[in-house]
């Protein structure tokens, strides 16, 4: 074992042991909050490969993504060449799409929110309301199992009364080191609609991160969308100018 890795391993072990000690009796609310902070950070820049798989065909895109805090993100497609430059900007819960071929920005209307994003198994709502689980749901620990030698908390999230939510229930599987390994989406009748698996937990940037995210709808066998993080960097902040319509249209970097 070479030296940096060894140090890293020791460091990780120390960090983990502190965490486990502190989280002897974790409460669900803080678990969820910590998990989201863990995977979001202050801000991040990532390169992601998205594979849309269907029984008869498959399609792979690569894209760059910038996120800041809970609500702002910018995603730009890098390949295939045909779709290069197509972008999605999200500020708060508003979303805009940009297409370079016609050089237009379209603001997504509420009626299109349930449609699929870029033909994937993610809906526009999955992006636009990604922070909804933090604010609109109450969390309770459903069960505790073990995974990778660590405790795994299954958290049941029920919407708060009158919260404008899409899902009737969500379930989160969070490892005790704050890594989300699964998220399940249920409708009002508590039927599983789609679920996401996060695998391949590796060091990305400065922290452990699941590199492979796979979303599939329960009704469609053999249909799934897989995100693979090729690069991920957590940073302290990103300037406002990144999350603007003009940057969506004319990338400055």
């Amino acid at each position: 074992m070479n030296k940096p890795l060894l140090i890293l391993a020791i460091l990780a072990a120390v960090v983990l042991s502190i965490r486990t000690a502190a989280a002897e009796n974790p409460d669900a609310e803080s678990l969820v909050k910590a998990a989201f902070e863990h995977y979001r950070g202050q801000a991040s820049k990532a390169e992601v490969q998205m594979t849309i798989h269907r029984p008869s065909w498959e399609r792979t895109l690569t894209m760059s993504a910038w996120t800041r805090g809970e609500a702002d993100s910018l995603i730009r497609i890098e390949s295939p060449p045909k779709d290069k430059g197509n972008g999605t900007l999200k500020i708060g819960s508003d979303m805009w799409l940009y297409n370079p071929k016609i050089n237009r920005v379209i603001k997504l209307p509420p009626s299109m929110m349930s449609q699929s994003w870029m033909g994937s198994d993610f809906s526009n709502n999955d992006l636009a309301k990604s922070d909804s689980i933090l604010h609109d749901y109450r969390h309770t620990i459903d069960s505790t199992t073990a995974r990778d030698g660590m405790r795994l908390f299954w958290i049941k999230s029920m919407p708060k009364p009158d919260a404008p939510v899409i899902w009737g229930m969500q379930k989160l599987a969070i490892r005790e080191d704050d890594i989300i390994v699964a998220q399940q989406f249920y409708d009002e009748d508590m039927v599983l609609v789609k679920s996401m698996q996060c695998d391949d937990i590796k060091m990305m940037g400065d922290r452990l991160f699941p590199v492979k995210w796979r979303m599939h709808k329960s009704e469609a066998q053999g249909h799934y969308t897989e995100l693979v993080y090729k690069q991920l960097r957590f940073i302290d902040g990103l300037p406002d100018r990144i999350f603007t319509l003009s940057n969506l249209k004319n990338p400055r970097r």
Partner: protein
Amino acid sequence: MLTIELKMAWRNIWRNTRRTLLTACAICFASVLLIFMLSLQFGSYATMINASVKIHTGHLQIQAAGYHEKKRMRMVVPEPEAVASVVASIAAVDVWTYRANAFSMVSTADRTYGALVIGIAPEREAHVSTLKQTIQNGRYFPTDDRSTPSDLTPALVGCLLAENLGITVGDELTIMGQGRDGSVAATVARVIGIYKSGMDGFDRSTVQIPLTAFQSIYTMGTAVHEVVVIGSSLKKVPGIKAAAAARLKDRFPDADLAVLDWENLVPGLKQAISLDLVMGVIMYFILVVVVAFSILNTFLMALFERTHEFGILMAVGTQRSRLTRVLVAESAMLTFLGSIAGVVIGILVTLYFQARGIDVSGSSEILSQYGISGKIHPRLSFFTVIAGPSIVYLITILSALYPALKIRRMTPLEALAHV
């Protein structure tokens, strides 16, 4: 012997002219009403089906199996020309066209709506659907297809969608959706025409662009989603459907093609018709029952009035069965007279309105959903002429049977004592 009974019956009828005429009138009126209403109903169904079918769906469509339910971009008819040549070989097929659909976002500078973008073959489409005639503002696609390539994609927009977007002829429209290969499909179109089909759902949610433009924007290649077929008449549709299915299977054994008729394509239309028919049948049933009771009443009254007469006939030795036969013959003649008059008048009235049409433009709010926007023409057929009157005839004969059978329980003495 029978002739004597018939003669007696005939004379008996005309002994009280007013009563006879009133009864006959009731039967006649019921028959006229039934003939007219049934013809009107079937006429409006034909109008509904044809109008609805002519606006968009066509009599039949050939699609990839499963496309109708799932509407997935990838489920295409890969060789539309070859499919069309197979369909064209069926004698009862009149015209056909190709279409491709994609649910997309259409937007102006500040508004965006989801809409179905439909690629149509301009020249063929004009023969198949009424789209060209329903253009309210602007014009249809130039059929010569020699528009300068640098121009924006021409587009026709439904009037309600145009209203929602706040656009008119000459304005630009951004269309953004997903191509067949999953890529982003986007184009800027110029509105050249606005159509008002009368079908609100259609006018609110569709945009039409030329098929060639559609195929390049949505990376469809030469594929389409629907081959739309119009037969020479509605009646020929089942025949065409069977023939097309068989020939396509023969010619393309590997292709997963489905032949759908208008009943499959617009199931709501068929259901609306069934519902309306059931409501109609209930109405007619009530009408027939009312008529039957009034006739029963007339015959019963006549019986009471003539009890003394029957007593005398029985006293001089007439058999009761013979009296019954006379009474049945009377009612049969009376009903027959009424029905014949009803059929004649009913046919005349219906034919008059069939030629002239009934204006329903005032109340077209609901009807326009089914594509009826103007006049309804009743449609006289053998069935509509025969069905109503024969039921009336049967019911009245049955109700007349009751008084006739009552005679069998009379004794001459009782009858004579009756005043």
